[in-house]
C-alpha cells in the first residue's frame, strides 16, 4: 500500500466521523462540493482533525492551494516522507 493510500485511509476515517450523513465514495478527487455537510465551518474542523491525526501542519499557502483531497494527501505525504 502506497504512503498516499495509507494517508487517504486515515483521512477517510475522519471524514466518515465528521460527516456522518455522507455515504458516498472518498477518493483523491473528492472535494467539499461532493459532501453536503462539508461547509466552511466544518472545513476548519476537518483540517484540525487531519493535522492532529496525521501529525502534520499545513501552511497558510498550502491550505489555500488544496483543490481536492488528493492535494491535501500529497502535501501530508511530503511532510511525513
Amino acid at each position, binding site marked *: 500500500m502506497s504512503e498516499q493510500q495509507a494517508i487517504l485511509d486515515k483521512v477517510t476515517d475522519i471524514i466518515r466521523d465528521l460527516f456522518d450523513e455522507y455515504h458516498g465514495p472518498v477518493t483523491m478527487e473528492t472535494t467539499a462540493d461532493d459532501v453536503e455537510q462539508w461547509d466552511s465551518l466544518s472545513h476548519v474542523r476537518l483540517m484540525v482533525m487531519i493535522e*492532529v*491525526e496525521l501529525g502534520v501542519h499545513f501552511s497558510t499557502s498550502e*491550505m489555500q492551494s488544496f483543490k481536492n483531497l488528493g492535494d491535501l494527501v500529497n502535501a501530508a505525504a511530503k511532510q511525513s516522507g
Partner: protein
Amino acid sequence: MSCDFPWRPPLAQDWSERLADIEAVLADGREPDYVALKTLANQQLGMREQLRIERLAKKLQKAALPNSAFAPVTIGLLGSRTLSYLPGPLAAAGLARGLTISSVEAHYDSVASYAFSPADCFGRPLDALLVVLDESAFASKRPMLDQAAENEALADAENLVTALAAAAQEKSGCRAIFATLPGALQVSSAELATPGTSARFRHRLNLMLAEGAMEGRWLLWDQAALASRVGLENWLDPVRYHAAKIPFSVDVCPLAADNIAALLAAMKGKAARGLILDLDNTLWGGVIGDDGLAGIRLGQNSPEGEAFVAFQNFVLSLRDRGIVLAVCSKNTDEIAREPFRNHTEMVIEEDHVAVFQANWSDKATNIKTIAETLSLGLESFAFIDDNAAERERVRQELPLVSTIEIGDDPSFYIERIAQSGLFDHLPLNKEDISRAESYGGRAAAAEIRAKIGNYDDYLTSLEMRMTIDPFDDAGRSRITQLINKSNQFNLTTRRYGEEDVRKMQDDPELMGWQVRLDDKFAQHGMIGVVIVRKDGAEWAIDTWLQSCRVLERGVEQCVMNSLFETAAQAGIQKIHSRYIPTDRNGMVSDFYSRLGFAVVDENDDGSVTYSCGVTDYEPHQTFIDVSLPK
C-alpha cells in the same frame, strides 16, 4: 497539548457502547437517562468522543424533550471575530455540568450595531450574552509613546462596553459577560511600560473590565487566564485567524467552552457549594492510624509535607469563599481528629469542618449523611480522595457528586480543583462569604438538636431573630440570586433578573419582601423572598421561596403570620396563592395546605391554586422574634 480535561475521570472502556445506548433511546424519541449522559460527557474525551457528544447534544436540543434534570441556558454570542466554533462544544460542555446550553449567534460584525443602533441581532430574550472582542473592535489609533491617545482609546473601549452591557439589558433582558483579552506577543521586555503597545492596552482594558464586574455592571469570562494556562502559542492559531477569522484555535474550543460552561453553571446555581475531604494521604501524608501523630507527613519535614500544607491553605481559601467543608474518612473518629487537635502544622481546624464523618462505613453512605446534615443536594458537593478505588466507588454509587480526578500527588491537588471550575462563582457578596460559617452553625445546631430532644425547647434555645424588609438597592443582588437559584423551597419557580427586581422596588402594585434570619450560632443572612401582587382588596402571592439552609425552624409560619398581619392592617380581605410543581420542589407541595390555605382549583398543568380569607387566618405558633417593615 494541554487541551484535555485532567480533572475529569478517564474515558470508560465501554464509553462508546454506553453512548450508543443513549443515542438509540434518543433516536426512539424517548427521554434518555440524563445522569448517565452527564457521566459520559464528563470524562476525558478524545477528539472523536467530543464530536459524538456534540452531535448528541444537538439532537437532544432538536428533540426538545421535557428535560427536568438539566437547567436550560440560552446564551447569545457576539464577537468581533466569528464564534461559530463555540455552539457545539458549549452544548457538549453543558451536558457535563448539568446544563443544556443553546447558543444564538449574532451575524458576523454586529458588535457596533447591537451596541449603538436599535437593531437587535438576536431578536429574543437571552439568559446571558457572551461578548468576545479583540483589538479590532477598538478602532482608535494608538501611536507609540502617546499616553494621551492610549487613554482616549481606553475611554472609547469603556464606552463601547458600557453600551453593550446596556443593550444586553434592554434588548435581551440579560447580563453581558465580557471576555478579557489574552496577552499579546511581546516584542520587548518593556511592552507593559511602553504606551501604545498592544500588551499595555490589553492589560489596562482587562483591568477596566474587572472593575466594571466588581461594580456589578457585567460579568467576566477570563479568557486571558485560560489562554495563559494553555500557553499563548496553543491558544492562538494565526493560520486560521487569517483564514477563518477565529479568535482562538479550534483545538482549544472544547476547553474554552467548558470554562464558559462553568461560569454559566455558577450563574444557574449549579456550582459546587460543599467540599468533602478524605484525610489520610489527602490532607496529610501517611495513615494516622498506622503512622501516628509523629509519623504522618505534614509540613517542614518533607517536600510532600509542604505540599499538604499548601493544599490545606487552598482548602481554607475555598472556605473563605463560602464553600462548606466536610470530612469523610475511614478511620476511628478519635484518631482521625488527633492531627486537628495536636499537630502543630495542621492548617485546617476542627471548627472549619461543618460535618466530620470518620468511621468504618462506606464512603457513599457517609457522603449521603453529610448532604442530609447540611440539607444540600448531592449535586452540590465535590469529593476529594487520593484513592482511585474509593473515587470509582463513589462515582458509581453517587454519580451526582462531583468526584474530581485528583491524582495521588498532593502537589497537583490544587491545580486539578482549580481547573475543574467546579467552584466557579460570580463576584462575591457578603452573604456568600458568611455562608460557610452559617453551614457550620447549622451543623452545630443539628448536634444540639439531637441532645435536646424537645423540638420546641430546641427552637427557643436558638434565639432566632428575623428581619423583614421591602426590596431595596442593598438587597437586590442577593434577592436576584435567590430568585434564580432556589429550586426546592420555591412555590412557583418564577425567575426574575436584576432589572426586573429593580423595577419591583418602585412598583406600587407590588410588595417585595426580603427576609433575614440570625440565631445564636450564625448569621444566616437573607433566607427568603416573597413577592405579592396587589389587586384592590385581594392580594396574590406571586413568589414564595426560602433558602434550604434553615428548614424546620418555623420560618415560613413566621413570615406568613407577618404577611396576614400586614394584609389585615391594609384592609385586605383575601390572599390568593399558587403551587406550580417542578421535579425539584416536591418538598413544598403541601405548603399552602399546611399553612391554612384552602384549595380553589387543581389546574390541568398540575398547578394548584389556593386562597385564604384574612379574617379566617389563624396565626401559627413560632419561636422567632420578628421585626416587620414600617
